[in-house]
């Protein structure tokens, strides 16, 4: 019996190893090519490892960083991501707390609305959204978080509600009896309880917002503000030739922060899952 499960586990490991190789390969290719000289990147040579002749060191990275607008793009992307994630965490957790603890028809409807918003494809609303964003002057990086809050709310509320339901209401009642106002209960008790979920939500939303291409392209003024994913597009832009090397380097630089965020947050996600599963 034990022998059998062990064998099955080993088989799974092998399968998963190949799956992860499949996932990792594109990233590896980008990394590989970002270290090659321009002439060595073509359809036929893309799969080759850099050799002594084609190895370019970090030249492509220097080019990418020195390229027009890279640093400001990086800053805009970071600013949009951070403000949006903070807004989503704060508003959605408070909202989810309220609608799980106060059960009326209205709160139930609001919950369903949030769940429903997750299944509406972005393409369906994007044109009306961009014209509305124009009218409301939401077309700058400084206030883009308002729009991301709207699109991120569905998933965040869904996740927060799911966790909130598993938290016994006793703890909040105890805090009310101990003398807190509802707001104090929220800040002193609810937020710390929600922390593992907050980390999960933050990672998911950050990955999406950081990498998002379509929404900022549609809403931001392309000539004034470019996020990283928009900038990458411009490496192959209007000059007639594609600067493959710097583009690959730029892609690597673009995904680096989000990978770091994920690796740092990852253990909190795992901890959160375990803490929820074990009582007390």
């Amino acid at each position, binding site marked *: 019996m034990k022998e059998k499960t062990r064998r099955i586990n080993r088989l799974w490991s092998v399968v998963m190893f190949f799956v992860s190789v499949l996932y990792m390969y594109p990233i590896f290719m980008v990394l590989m090519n970002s270290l090659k000289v321009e002439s060595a990147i073509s359809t036929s040579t893309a799969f080759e490892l850099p050799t002594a002749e084609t190895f370019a060191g970090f030249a492509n990275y220097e080019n990418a960083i020195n390229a027009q607008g890279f640093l400001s793009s990086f800053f805009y992307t970071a600013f949009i991501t951070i403000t949006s994630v903070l807004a989503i965490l704060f508003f959605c957790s408070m909202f989810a707390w309220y609608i799980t603890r106060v059960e009326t028809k209205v709160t139930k409807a609001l919950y369903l609305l949030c769940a429903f918003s997750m299944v509406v494809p972005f393409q369906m609303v994007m044109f009306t959204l961009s014209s509305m964003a124009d009218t409301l002057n939401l077309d700058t990086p400084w206030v883009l978080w308002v729009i991301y809050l709207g699109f991120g709310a569905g998933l965040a509320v869904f996740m927060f509600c799911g966790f909130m339901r598993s938290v*016994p209401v*006793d*703890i909040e*009642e*105890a*805090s*009310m*009896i*101990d*003398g*807190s*106002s509802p707001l*104090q209960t929220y800040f*002193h*008790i609810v937020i*710390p*309880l929600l*922390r593992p979920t907050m980390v999960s939500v933050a990672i998911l939303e950050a990955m999406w917002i950081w990498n998002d291409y379509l929404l900022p392209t549609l809403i931001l003024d392309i000539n004034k503000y470019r996020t990283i994913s928009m900038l990458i597009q411009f490496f192959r832009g209007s000059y007639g030739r594609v600067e493959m090397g710097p583009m690959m380097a730029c892609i690597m630089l673009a995904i680096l922060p989000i990978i770091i965020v994920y690796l740092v947050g990852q253990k909190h996600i795992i901890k959160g899952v375990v803490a929820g599963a074990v009582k*007390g």
Partner: protein
Amino acid sequence: MAEVSLRHIEKVYPNTEKKKKGEKKSNLKVTEEGVLAVQDFNLDIKDREFVVLVGPSGCGKSTTLRMVAGLEEITRGELYIDGKLMNDAAPKDRDIAMVFQSYALYPHMTVRGNMEYPLKLKKMPKEEMNQRVEQAAEILGITQYLDRKPKALSGGQRQRVAIGRAIVREPKVLLMDEPLSNLDAKLRNQMRAEIIKLRERIDTTFIYVTHDQTEAMTLGDRIVIMKDGVIQQVGTPQEVFDHPANLFVAGFIGVPQMNFYDAELIRDGSGSYTVQVENVHIVPSEEKQARLRQNGVESQSITLGVRPEHITLLGEGENMLHGAVEVTEMMGSAVHLHVNFGGRDTIIIAQTMSLEGRNPVHFGGGNPISFTFGGNVIHMFSKKDERNLEA
């Protein structure tokens, strides 16, 4: 410390779910408004008194307690704490503390953090706060755990922390909702003793909820027995044990349960009463006779109640009830005999030891047995409304 008065308190839960009606789990009264979880609850609790609310599951104990705490709205009636009307006061303005069945500790704070939390909210100076926390920890024997998180504590230790958090504030009223029911039997007994000790050391009015009659009897100055949202009896443990107000209380208080028999109460011309069970006649004690006379009780069919420990075992003889032993449970100091008497189970407690030494009790299954009981230990309940005829 404070007096707490509940006047005609009622709680109605709106009848939102239709399914609940169909289930018909409890016998709660259902009106147009909804389910009456607590009906016309009247109780005056004295300063420093320890009152226990006891009753079977779903009888409205927690609901009553939560109304006192301010966690549940009071549908009708008035709640006074220390003479002030508190119906609409927020929990934090009532100067009460509560210990929950689930402990409800703040998992992200240390034990010290948990106990400090109510004091911090009161903006108490650091010095005094430390002193109070350490004093409470001392009383409860949790000083060495002050810097641990709740998840690193055992159930009993968590319970102590929960009590500690409640007493540091020196609240006027301390509410406890089944605080011991998550503990194992041994720890429960130990904590029960500690609650008794605790109560000597702090000046607070206690309201304690439990479904365990032993806890109620051992802890309470007064016991409030509830069923289906209605108070059945209020009294000291001795009172409710000796003079149960009705059949329900008689059956609920005391382990093993009181035995019940169908019987006839006969009043003769001179106004003296006899109880007839099967063909055996029992004459109630003078005291009981007088009370029956005072109430003007007529001859009628009754339910006769006798506690297992009040039944006397005898050899063959006149005026005896006869049954057959079905099961014997050896308890050490006593044997519980389950006797089949007229198709019903009667429990009799027989002591294994007496002054003369080991009692010669060998009760195998199926053995015939004869027993009787005195006129001073019987309880007589009306068949009609199940009330104690002496009350």
